[in-house]
C-alpha cells in the first residue's frame, strides 16, 4: 500500500517537474486510444447519420451557398495577394521583417470527454503527423487553443476558455495589447489587465498579437461583449466571446507557424516565395535578416 502511494506521488511530482514521463504516457495512450475511439463512436454515428439523411434540396442549397462563398473568398484572396505584396514593400521601407505564412493540418475532434472542468479536447492527429506541443489550433472562425500534449496517434488541445489558459491579444481597432484568460465557462474570456480608461468598447475584435511566440499574429480570437467598471477596482472587468465555434466545431486546423522572417530589400526575387509555404527556403535567407531586426 505504502509502496503504491509513494510510487504514485513520485509519478505526480515527476510529471509536474520534468517531461521524462512523456514516453510512458505515449505508450499507454496506444492502449487507451482504441477505447477512446469506441467511446466516440455513438456521437460520431449520430453525426454521420444526420448527414446521411439530409434532403436533396438542402444539399443543393448548401452547395449553392458554398459556391457563392467560394467565389467571394477567391475574390478576397486575389486582393489579399496584392495586399501582402504591398505590405512587404511597405515593411521594406520601414526596414521591418515580414513573417512567412503558415502550414496547416486538418484534425478531427474525437468526441471524448476528458475532464469536464478543464476545456481540453482530443483530436485525431498526433506525433506521427509531426504535431508537437504548443502548436496553435484554429477553426474557420478564429483561434481555438493550443496543443498541450502530442501523443502518437492523438493529441490534446487546450481551448482558450480553459481556466489554465491565457493568450496575448490586441484590439484590432487600435492595437491595444493585453492578455485574455479562459474562465472555465464555455464561450467566455476574461481580460483583467486593462485600466478603467482603456480604449476598448463592446464589439471590438481581439486578434492575436503574436507576442509570446506561440500564436501567430493577426488571427481573430474574440469579440468584446461586456465592459464594466467598479468604483472600488482600479482595473476594468472586460469579457469577450471567442470567435471560434468552440462547442460545435469538429474540424480543427493545427498550424505550423514559421517564426523565421522573409528576407527583404536586397533580394526582390525571394519575395514571391513568401506566400508559398516553403519552409526550406528560409534557413539560407534568415541570416541576412539580422541587421533589419533592430528598429
Amino acid at each position, binding site marked *: 500500500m505504502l509502496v503504491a502511494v509513494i510510487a504514485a506521488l513520485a509519478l505526480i511530482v*515527476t*510529471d509536474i517537474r520534468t517531461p521524462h514521463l512523456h514516453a510512458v504516457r505515449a505508450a499507454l495512450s496506444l492502449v487507451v486510444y482504441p477505447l477512446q475511439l469506441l*467511446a466516440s463512436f455513438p456521437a460520431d454515428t449520430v453525426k454521420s447519420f444526420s448527414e446521411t439523411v439530409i434532403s436533396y434540396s438542402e444539399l443543393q442549397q448548401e452547395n449553392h451557398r458554398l459556391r457563392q462563398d467560394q467565389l467571394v473568398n477567391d475574390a478576397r484572396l486575389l486582393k489579399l495577394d496584392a495586399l501582402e505584396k504591398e505590405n512587404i514593400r511597405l515593411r521594406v521601407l520601414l526596414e521591418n521583417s515580414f513573417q512567412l505564412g503558415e502550414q496547416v493540418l486538418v484534425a478531427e475532434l474525437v468526441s471524448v470527454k476528458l*475532464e469536464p472542468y478543464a476545456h481540453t479536447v482530443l483530436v485525431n492527429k498526433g506525433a506521427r503527423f509531426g504535431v508537437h506541443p504548443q502548436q496553435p489550433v484554429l477553426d474557420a472562425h478564429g483561434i481555438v487553443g493550443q496543443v498541450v500534449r502530442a501523443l502518437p496517434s492523438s493529441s490534446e488541445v487546450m481551448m482558450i476558455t480553459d481556466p*489554465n489558459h491565457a493568450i496575448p491579444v490586441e484590439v484590432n481597432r487600435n492595437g491595444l495589447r493585453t492578455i485574455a484568460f479562459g474562465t472555465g465557462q464555455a464561450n467566455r474570456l476574461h481580460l483583467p489587465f486593462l485600466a478603467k480608461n482603456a480604449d476598448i468598447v463592446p464589439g471590438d475584435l481581439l486578434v492575436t498579437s503574436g507576442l509570446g511566440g506561440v500564436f501567430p499574429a493577426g488571427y481573430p480570437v474574440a469579440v468584446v461583449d461586456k465592459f464594466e467598471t467598479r468604483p472600488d477596482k482600479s482595473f476594468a472587468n472586460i469579457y469577450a466571446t471567442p470567435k471560434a465555434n468552440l462547442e460545435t466545431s469538429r474540424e480543427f486546423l493545427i498550424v505550423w507557424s514559421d517564426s523565421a522572417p522573409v528576407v527583404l530589400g536586397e533580394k526582390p526575387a525571394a519575395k514571391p516565395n513568401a506566400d508559398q509555404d516553403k519552409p526550406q527556403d528560409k534557413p539560407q535567407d534568415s541570416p541576412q535578416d539580422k541587421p533589419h531586426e533592430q528598429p
Partner: protein
Amino acid sequence: MNNPDPSATLTFLATLGGAMVLKAMAISPAVDLFNPDWVSLLLIYWCIALPERFGVFTGWLVGLLIDVLAGQLLGQNALIHALICYFCVKEHRRLRQFPLAQQCLFVLFCLLASRSIVFGIESMKATAHHLPPSFWYPVLSGTLLWPAVFLLLRKIRVLARIN
C-alpha cells in the same frame, strides 16, 4: 493467487473496458456533468468481491491508464484508485455484510475522498476558484448509481461463474 482463474481476469478486463468507455463517452454537456466515475465503482465492486485477486496494485495500474485516458497528471488517478482499493480490500468482510444503503455511504466516502484529492491537485495549479459546483456532481451520481452497478456486476459475476 496460486489458482489463477483466467475467466475472472477476462471478465474484469471486459468490464474495465466498458467502464472506461462509459467514462470517456460524451453524450451531451448536461449529462456529462453527472457522468460518474465508473472505473472507481467497478474497482470498488471487484475489490469487495475478489479481494484476493484484485487489490492495490490493480488499482494503481488501472489508475495509470485512466490518467492517460482523461489527460490528467500522470499518477493522480493511480494514487486515488490505489487508495480506494486499499480500503475496499481491508474492509471487504464488513462491506459484504452491509445492506446496499450502507454500502452507498461507503461509496460516497470513497468518491468524495477521491474527488477531494483531485481538488487538492487542481488547487496547486491555482485554478481551484474556477472549479464550478458541477465539479462535485459525479460524487452524487456515482453514489446513487452504486446499487445498479453492484447488482449488474454481481449478475455478470454469477453468469461467468467466478467465485
